[in-house]
């Protein structure tokens, strides 16, 4: 692999995620509304701890082991993603059926969907815990999907490291799906090609942030080039080290990073606050983000306290994002100003 000029990256701050799925809907309505794409969600948000999308994806293997050898992975089944349910609307409104019909999913009760275990989490009342984990393709530096494809149909753009499936080359062997440890590649059963998050490359090419980031009302997604030392990504990932990849042990070097969540205080057996034990267990966060997560949490907490006392903290000011546009590392063009046929001229 040759060194790329730049690598685009995203940081998602889990302390700001509302679980509202505006990202999911923004992505869905823009990209995955075509033939065979109904069940696809390039962007998902899941309540963690939880089984996620596809169900139990963390147990499906893929990626690389510590020595860089490919770990075996398996294909997710359609039921593990959940189908794009169809509903019997027409029976309700015009069929003359009165109250004898109710709105139903056609084809029987599903067993899973992309947000099936929303707001459930783990633990026991009053110390239950959960948080929201949005996920897109990680656009990995060492992409397992790319390594697994016998057709060289998975491309990583020279200019910015965006990973895309070349649907012209793809023959639907689905090795990429098994190899991706994050299970972020879908298979289009109509077109017989793999499809996945494209980091909104048509928007990137016009200087516009990806839809999931620009449309996020919780303002938690930072976008930019890893090596832009003046932009938030570099500062959050490399300078302050508060943003970490999900499951670094999968060995693919993701380019999506997370600021870990700080939950509310937990309660002891007597019902008083127990300062000694965080509500979201450290070991759970370590299992997601690796051991560095503890340092990241400590840094965020310390800087928050500094901001409280002194009113000053570069890190807190970054995370607050007083000016929304500052989150996008220069990719802050208003999409409504893009000329629609510009791309045709630029090619």
């Amino acid at each position, binding site marked *: 692999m040759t060194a790329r000029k730049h690598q685009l990256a995203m940081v998602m701050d889990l*302390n*700001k995620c*509302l*679980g*509202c*799925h*505006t990202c999911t*809907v923004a992505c*869905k*309505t823009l*990209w995955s*509304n*075509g033939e065979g794409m109904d069940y696809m969600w390039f962007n998902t948000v899941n309540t963690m701890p939880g089984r996620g999308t596809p169900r139990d994806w963390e147990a499906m293997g893929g990626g690389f082991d510590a020595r860089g050898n490919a770990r075996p992975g398996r294909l997710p089944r359609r039921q593990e993603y*959940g189908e794009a*349910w169809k*509903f019997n*609307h*027409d029976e309700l*409104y*015009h069929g003359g*059926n*009165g*109250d004898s019909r*109710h*709105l139903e999913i056609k084809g029987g*009760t*599903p067993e899973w*969907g*992309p*947000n*099936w275990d929303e707001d*459930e989490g783990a633990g*026991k*009342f*009053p110390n*239950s815990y*959960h948080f929201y984990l949005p996920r897109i393709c990680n656009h990995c530096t060492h992409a397992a999907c790319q390594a697994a494809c016998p057709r060289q149909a998975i491309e990583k753009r020279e200019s910015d490291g965006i990973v895309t499936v*070349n*649907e012209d080359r793809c023959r639907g062997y689905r090795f990429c799906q098994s190899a991706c440890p994050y299970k972020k590649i879908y298979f289009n059963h109509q077109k017989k090609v793999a499809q996945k998050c494209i980091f*909104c490359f048509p928007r990137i090419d016009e200087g516009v942030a990806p839809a999931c980031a*620009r*449309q996020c*009302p919780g*303002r938690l997604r930072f976008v930019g080039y890893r090596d832009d030392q003046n932009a938030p990504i570099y500062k959050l990932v490399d300078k302050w080290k508060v943003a970490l990849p999900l499951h670094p042990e999968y060995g693919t070097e993701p380019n999506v990073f997370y600021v870990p969540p700080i*939950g*509310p205080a937990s309660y002891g057996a007597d019902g*008083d*606050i127990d300062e000694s034990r965080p509500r979201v267990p450290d070991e759970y966060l370590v299992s997601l983000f690796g051991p560095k997560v503890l340092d990241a949490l400590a840094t965020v907490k310390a800087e928050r306290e500094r*901001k409280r006392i002194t009113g000053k903290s570069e890190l807190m000011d970054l*995370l*607050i994002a*007083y*000016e*929304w546009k500052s989150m996008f590392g220069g990719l802050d063009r*208003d999409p409504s100003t893009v000329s*629609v*046929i510009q*791309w*045709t001229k630029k*090619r």
Partner: protein
Amino acid sequence: MKLSFDSARRSFLRGGVAGAAGLMLDLSNLRLAIAGGGLPPEAKLYKDYRDVYRQKWAWDHVSVGTHTCTNCASGGCSWDLYVRDGIVWREEQGAPYTQTNATVPDYNPRGCQKGASASALYRSPARIRYPLKRVGARGENRWKRISWEEALDEIARTLVDTLSKRGGAGAYLENGNNSDFGPSWIAMMRFFRGLGIPITENFAGSGDLMTGATLTLGNPVPGASSDDWFRTDYFVNWFGNPVSTRIPDAHFMTEARYRGAKIVSITPDFSPSAIHADLWIGIRPGTDAALALAACKVIIDENLHDAPYVVEQTDLPLLIRTDTQQFLREFDVVPGGRRQCFAWWDEKKQQVVWSASSADIEQDKRTLKLGPEDRPTLEPKGAQITLASGRTVALRTAFSLLREKLAAYDLDSASKITGVNPKVIRRFAREFAQAKSAMIYAGAAMGKILHGELVQRATILLAALTGNNGRAGGGWQEMTFWELEGLLLSGLYDHPSDLINTDNPAAVWGAFGEIGKEQAASPSYISGSMMMLNNGGTYATQLDPRYNDPTLPRKPEEYLKEAIAKGELHNVPGPELGSPDVIFNMFGNPFRHNRMGDRLANTLFATAKLVVNLTLRMDDTARHSDILLPSAAPYEKLGFKYTIAYPPYLHLGDKAVAPAGEAKSDWEILSLLMERVSTEAKRRNVTQVTTYRGVPYDLTQAHWRFTDKGRLGPADDEKLVRLILGLSTATRGITLEKLRASKGVMRYTGVSAIGGRMWCGTSDYKIDEPLVPYQDMVVKKMPWPTSTGRQQFYIDHPIFVEVGETLPVHKEPPMAGGHYPLQLTCGHTRWSIHTAWRDVDILLRLQRGEPVIFVNPDDAKSRGIGDHDYAAVHNDVGEFVARVKLTPGIRPGQVHVYHAWLANQFVTGKSNDALAPSPMRVTNFAGKHGHVKSEVGWIDPTQNDRDTRVDLRKHVVREHP
């Protein structure tokens, strides 16, 4: 490459008929062909797979307006609409908001997943595209398409029949809260006001009215702009869930946390908002007043309260007669003295001093400011006075009575009531008092329990004792509104066009004078909740003493009858309105928004000859209507988003595309109907009829009045928008053209004087500062809009005295629905705005596709119920069936259902609203007592549902063959 309107419309209609799905193929080539531009040479060839994606992100034009999600209480959001072939392809936030100033984050990008899928709602299978007439039985869902002419003619004929026989009392309008603040609302007001047909007002009917805030602050809707949240040092989410229900504003909370604020969340369950808190207090449902009062006790006992503020800004230093529990009033002492004139005990003078804040003090002398010699005392010793009768009575301050009341809320007692550890209560109290600024975000659910009024009074007390009301980043906040005089004048005054080009303020005040006279004689609004109570089939259930406060000395019904007999209730919709011939419905879904709203089918709707529904889509109420008139969706017409002040920006909803099918704007529909009504009246020679309150008017002239002497035609939505802009203080300098040039969004430029002490008109407005209410009071020392002119915690109306609520107290939640072990709580969901979006496929796929109840795993297990099993939720009042979602964050003993599934999404066709007995709060019947007066939107009996008691049992659903 913009399409001409005609070609866009033609292709849209074709697409609309075939269903939008038929156009989901790539249309960019077709677009170019239609526009006659031909393809650019390089675009003709498919180069590679990337072109497919590039073409997905393409559009003909962007409509830089917003759509207005008229039923959302978060305030407006700016959306750009990406239009292809006359169809809104997708929506993306416009994000045009500039920072208020450098110390607070900006408002961008505002918008949520509902806004991002608005087109999915507006093009959903439930959308009404043509006038429809019922051909089966009501509720059977059998319809035929009819023309606009047929529909309007039939309605006009029936309406003239009714008006000529029974006047306006033969009809009424079911009105929900989904109106715009624009032509749709104006159309409704001009039409029904003009015909003297009553309109239900449902602020209380939906349970949103905070009567405790009215009683205490003289403002049912107090609040700041949401960027003020960022400035707080202690943010308390009490009863709310802003992470789900204030999606565009919630970042100010999470960002305040990074600024160093402590975030507290007080809710029974570990909610989506609790996860972003530093401290979550999982309180036993409905015991919040006890927690607040215990905190107040800690604060007073530890002398952490802000005594100078309390003395100046609250009624706590005012004197109460120990013999009657009434305030000491001037007329008690001085023959012919003033009624609303209250006193404190002056420590220096050792005598009674009449407070210049009192409502009956001469206007120019009224003030909260104390004189240099004034020394009001909170706890005088031996205060007494000789009354005019010659009798001497001992006097106590409200503060000393409060201290006595608070004795019941020591930490241990409060802990027993609330289930919260005493140390946690004490810590919360101390932190709240010691924070530089502390804010209580009062969730709307605080109005939706029987004793919500007491919770509001108790939590406002906490904010007042600590001097937080009126402080930047502090105080008790719900939501406030920007008042638009132009809207009121256009809806309520016959000739608003006369005012538009006049610079004569007297003309405007004259118009308001006429509005006042007309409204006094025949008010446009009736109370929606009282209409439901009296005529909706819920009387016996809502007044059932078993479901109410067991400590009431008398049956709830007796308080109601007494209030009616004394004339304390304003404009009661009684039996005279109980058998309407014609029912209209606009902006709401009364079968859903009323608790037990399903009973309308067997009461008001059962006897009506004609039910007309102006509606976007087929909902519970539409299914029980006779003629459905397709109303244009927000982005198919012009309008303003209602002016909730979280974002201090006016939001224009522009007409991005032509209405779907044959839908029309509400203004056009009612214009056309009014024209026919007058024509029909002339044809039959029906001239004089009466309003529902007996005021005579000439029906043949109704159209002339509606159209402002012919100056407002059916296509003049834009003229109305200009009237609003031209006649409102808040929009001075804002024009339609400027709005369109700035993505339909501009910051308000002022605050209306007529909002008065209500709404957000309590501060001078600074365009580069977050809005902080009550600067008039805390800085300028202008009195509060209460009888005492102070934040008033003591209410001496006889009902309050009788039921032991002169001061805020805790009362146990009632056994609403019977003695059942579980409490059914409810809250707004992130997934819908009331029933809108509830049945939209893209969002259902991100849930479980059907109604769920959240249950603690232990409660489910003990009943043999597993995850995703059906459970029947039942009590004395009814039963509904839903899927169970096992959730450890739900408190044991609590069952939670998120708001506003449509009835026909439940397997048995009954929703959770069907079993909420919504007991009536007897203090809501109080009136004619200073600011304690009965009026819609002020003090009006509120519906509630969060106290409903239930049990669960496993339910097996029979599959359809």
